[in-house]
């Protein structure tokens, strides 16, 4: 469905000197710096996948999304959406995609939501029947019925986001790009947004590409993640496999009756706080049952809990690998 071949993006930024003298010099002579925001990306995404596209701020993920949606022109390389080159045939190719930016809206501030939708209906030339069917589905999933007649400028962020999501699906795109959709949303709205993504993926086989800093989004939605840093792909694959490979350990949290905490030769004691201790151990070396048995043989245990290595560990490690290099 989506193919990205050797994608590059260079920016030219003008370097300015500091202070007044720098500003004056800048008027006459400017030094240009080339920044490689995206540096040779290759991947392909199949129909019906939900892919989490993650990376730290300034990693080039937003630039990539903007090239994939036809907004920015790549310096070299190409993006094919459903076989069409989005840079060369932007107007045709964007019919297959819907885009939602968490920090911007495609709705018109001066219009009521339904007027904005009507405008989009004309822009995409959607026939009336299909339009009202889609609207019904959107109302079922998102409950936008009650805000249709509300002017966009009077909407809360959550309502606006629901409006934007519905707007991006009006023309039934095959691919939906979501750029930090949950930013600033409350728990309830986040929940309905996630439900929406799952539903359209299930009902319409919509391919979803999602960038987010919210690990909950990734955990609940994405089977596959692509981690990008400094414009290159650090990891691309199945979420649980990546976890298994990068962080194949678990943490056992044990509460004892007193602060005399026992050690274990195959598990690392990573923190102790009064009578609560955390042990990190590798699945390949030790089972949780063994560890618990050994510990309880030494001291009486009051309470235990086991934590899998989280997605946040993965991200920390994946980002960290680059830093070490």
């Amino acid at each position: 469905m989506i193919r990205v071949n050797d994608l590059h993006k260079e920016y030219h930024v003008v370097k300015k000197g500091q202070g007044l003298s720098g500003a004056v010099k800048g008027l006459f002579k400017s030094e240009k710096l080339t920044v490689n925001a995206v540096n040779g990306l290759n991947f392909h995404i199949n129909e019906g996948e939900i892919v989490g596209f993650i990376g730290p701020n300034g990693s080039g993920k937003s630039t990539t999304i903007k090239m994939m949606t036809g907004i920015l022109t790549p310096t070299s390389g190409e993006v094919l959406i459903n076989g069409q080159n989005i840079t060369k045939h932007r107007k045709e190719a964007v019919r297959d995609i819907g885009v939602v930016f968490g920090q911007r809206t495609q709705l018109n501030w001066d219009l009521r939501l339904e007027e904005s939708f009507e405008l989009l209906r004309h822009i995409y030339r959607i026939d009336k029947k299909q339009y009202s069917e889609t609207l019904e589905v959107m109302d079922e999933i998102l409950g936008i019925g009650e805000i249709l007649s509300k002017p966009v400028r009077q909407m809360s962020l959550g309502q606006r986001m629901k409006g934007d999501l519905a707007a991006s699906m009006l023309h039934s795109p095959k691919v939906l790009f979501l750029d930090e959709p949950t930013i600033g949303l409350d728990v309830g709205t986040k929940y309905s947004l996630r439900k929406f993504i799952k539903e359209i993926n299930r009902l319409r086989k919509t391919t979803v590409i999602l960038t987010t800093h919210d690990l909950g989004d990734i955990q609940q939605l994405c089977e596959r993640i692509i981690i990008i840093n400094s414009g290159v792909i650090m990891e691309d694959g199945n979420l649980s496999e990546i976890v298994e490979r990068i962080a194949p350990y678990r943490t056992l949290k044990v509460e004892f009756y007193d602060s005399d905490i026992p050690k274990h030769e195959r598990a690392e004691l990573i923190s102790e706080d009064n009578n609560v201790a955390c042990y990190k151990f590798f699945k390949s070396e030790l089972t949780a049952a063994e560890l618990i048995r050994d510990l309880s043989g030494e001291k009486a245990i009051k309470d235990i809990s086991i934590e899998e290595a989280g997605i946040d560990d993965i991200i920390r490690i994946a980002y960290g690998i680059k830093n070490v290099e």
Partner: protein
Amino acid sequence: MSYLYVMKTQLIRSFTYRFDVYGNIIMQTIIMVTTAFFWKALFGSGSFGNGMTADKMLTYTIISSAMSVLFTTGVERRIQRSVQQGSISVEMIHPINVFGVYFAEDMGTIAALLFQNLLPIIIIGSLVIKVPMIVSVSAIPMFAASLVLSMGINWLLAAIFGMWAFTAVEMDALIQVKKHLLRLLSGSIIPIWFFPDSLRAVLEALPFVYIYQLPLDIYVGSASTEDILRRMVIQVIWFAVLGTAFFILQRRVLGKVMVQGG
């Protein structure tokens, strides 16, 4: 058609904003009336060299004020805002040309202004100054054709100028300079026949006089048919040149979009 619907939406939006509408009527009325008094004082009951009388000059003034409404453009500011706020990115996700959208929006605004500004200005002018009749019925088609080309040239100039915003992001001051320069050089307030011959020759080579001066000359009948036809050919050429430049530039500019802020 999608662009027509954009225009219609803009028309509806314009009607909901009453504010600047009255301001503009008042401003245009003040300019129109003071200019009219100026010409009256200058001419008295005499006439100028090329058969211009004070009466014709008053018609010139009223029609010029009314025409200024048709030359309203939002495109420069629109580009600037889109680039500055980064909303250009959401405009480019739709299967539609962004400049086409800006053009349709401007046409929608002008359509609303026909009722909100143009009509009131003509009515006020007719009541306070005189009824601005066209020189002859046979001049109407030529005037209309020339006016359409004028609007085209004016919009293309604004759009090309506005594309600067893609590089020189801050351009509020430039927009003002351009606006006033255009009014001065286009014959909108002072017809260029009052300028020295050398300056006049320079101005006739530039596109600005083909925005105001030419349609106004046709309207009041202050030039020979031969002269008018010659200048209409130049007007068509300018329209074609600017149109071509616009199409080339807009492709280049959209290929170089930078999105501010994420």
